[in-house]
């Protein structure tokens, strides 16, 4: 087990810089999730830690050892790939034992470790099968098993659940979390799925176009998103962004309605409100002309537009509701659920 630190990491492909000065200190035993849309550089970052991509500049430490020049095999890491990368011609047992065999572990030791890992993952019954005889979920477990038998300092996960169906994904997500807790191995997990990120990570690193947008706990990210990007990325359905003007402790919306605020800032801004924080209030300042209601059972998503404007707004309200298209609804939002962003930099405005 080890800490990991990323110091001023840069990655170029040819002349194009794809990762820009990434910094990060990961604690021992921590579960770090790197999340972002596809192409944001998250897999590249993970693969740099694995040693599968070279480092253009900057340093990667695992424990107190600088690993930039080390072969993947010498970094004491294990990786779970998106397509599992199980060796198709080897049985489950051989797949799990391969890394140990190459490291010249004794036969008994290999046997013991494989059985131990298989017990933890409940795959004892499949040890002699080939990967193609297994279901997706079972392959996923084998891939995990291959990672844990070596008892490495670091686990790396590269979107390991994206090939599974929705139900299995939820189940495996829980298992990965439990397993990581139990083994206490520092883990880096890459995903584009914000729900996965929120549920798994002790801390999340949100990556956008090669920049770290924010690095913090899930609750931090949810409550105090550092930018419009993070705010929009975390939470479902996405946060509403309403163009606004800040004047004399008021937020003035496009249609002229005003909302009191404690912020002392002035000028153009983006006012962010999460759908679940919109409360129906006949005196509320946010006037929405409804277009469509989606009833999800526990709650209802009301889609509409800010009255007299084009800006679309979504509200998530408890219970079953059905509003005629075109009816006007008013919402209120408590001040602690206000998010204000600079309209140019799209960074969070602190009050």
């Amino acid at each position, binding site marked *: 087990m080890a800490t990991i630190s990323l110091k001023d990491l840069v990655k170029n492909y040819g002349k194009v810089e794809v990762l820009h000065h990434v910094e990060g200190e990961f604690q021992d035993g921590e579960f770090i999730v790197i999340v972002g849309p596809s192409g944001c550089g998250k897999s590249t970052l993970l*693969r740099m830690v694995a040693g599968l991509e070279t480092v253009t500049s900057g340093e990667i430490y695992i424990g107190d050892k600088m690993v930039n020049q080390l072969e*993947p095999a010498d970094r004491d890491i294990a*990786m779970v790939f998106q397509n599992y990368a199980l060796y198709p011609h080897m049985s489950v047992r051989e797949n799990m034992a391969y890394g140990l065999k190459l490291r010249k572990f004794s036969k008994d030791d290999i046997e013991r470790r494989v059985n131990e890992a298989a017990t933890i993952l409940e795959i004892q019954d499949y040890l002699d099968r080939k990967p193609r005889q297994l279901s997706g979920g079972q392959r996923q477990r084998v891939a995990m098993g291959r990672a844990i038998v070596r008892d490495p300092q670091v686990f790396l996960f590269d979107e390991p659940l994206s090939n599974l169906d929705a139900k299995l994904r939820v189940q495996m997500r829980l298992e990965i979390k439990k397993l990581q807790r139990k083994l206490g191995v520092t883990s880096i997990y890459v995903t584009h799925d914000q729900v996965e990120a929120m549920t798994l990570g002790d801390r999340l690193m949100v990556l956008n176009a090669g920049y770290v947008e924010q690095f913090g706990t899930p609750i931090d990210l949810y409550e105090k998103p550092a930018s419009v990007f993070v705010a929009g990325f975390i939470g479902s359905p996405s946060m509403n962004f309403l163009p606004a003007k800040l004047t004399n402790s008021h937020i003035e919306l496009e249609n002229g309605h005003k909302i009191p605020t404690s912020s002392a800032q002035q000028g153009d801004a983006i006012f962010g409100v999460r759908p679940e924080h919109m409360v129906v209030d006949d005196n509320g300042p946010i006037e929405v002309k409804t277009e469509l209601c989606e009833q999800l059972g526990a709650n209802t998503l009301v889609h509409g537009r800010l009255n007299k404007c084009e800006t679309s707004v979504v509200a998530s309200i408890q219970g079953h509701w059905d509003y005629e298209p075109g009816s006007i609804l008013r919402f209120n939002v408590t001040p602690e659920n206000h998010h204000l962003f600079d309209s140019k930099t799209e960074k969070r405005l602190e009050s």
Partner: protein
Amino acid sequence: MVEHRPILNIVTHLVLILGILIVALPIWITFVAATHDEARMLQAPLPLLPGPYFIENFKKTLFGSGLSGTETAPVWRMLMNSLFMAIMIAVGKIAISLLSAFAIVYFKFPFRMGFFWLIFITLMLPVEVRILPTYEVVADLGMLNSYWGLSIPLIASATATFMFRQVFLTIPDEMLESARIDGAKPMRFFFDILLPLSRTNIAALFVILFIYGWNQYLWPLLITTETDMTTIVMSIKQMLEAAEQSPQWNIIMMTALLAMIPPVFVVIGMQKMFVKGLTETDK
């Protein structure tokens, strides 16, 4: 098929059977010729149904000294020569192609593309067009009348290298990444992962190359002057020449039959693999 058309179905089968008859006719006639005695084979019209001498001709051909009046090696000897040559060519081609495809796909090294083009050029130089100078090289190296001379000049081929390259490119990158994390060095990766994963392609290619090697004609014709080194395919021509003086068609056709049995057997026995290999290699 899409709709039910009994007449068309009958026509279909008739055409196919006719096709098979035409394709098989020369082979049937060969077989028939190999089942009669010498005298019968000198009377026109030649028979169209098998006679009783198959076993006798078989023994005479396989273990005798071929045609009377000519000096050829016994047929079993020529079969062995062909077998050696075909296996050496097939195994040799597969081995060197696997290695070079491995280098080109999995390594970054200076002149990589240069080597690739060098191999590619061999595609454009069938042995027939460079026959004389190649013969001189082999003669200078003292490789005439040897299995080495028969096989080595034929084992460099771009086709096999390209096929393996293609196969390797379809193996997911994660195999290598995972193997590297597991601690596999290049050659270990090659033997533990790459070879087992290319097993079916290797087998398919072996079939094709075995036939290619077995059926070589012009090259062995030039390289071998000693009767001990003649291959079975070559011997047919010598027998045809001899036939002009003393036609022993039963023996000649039995020899032809023996010469085609091994490759035909391989093709039919490994049909599925061979078809897959052929249609996917050449494309």
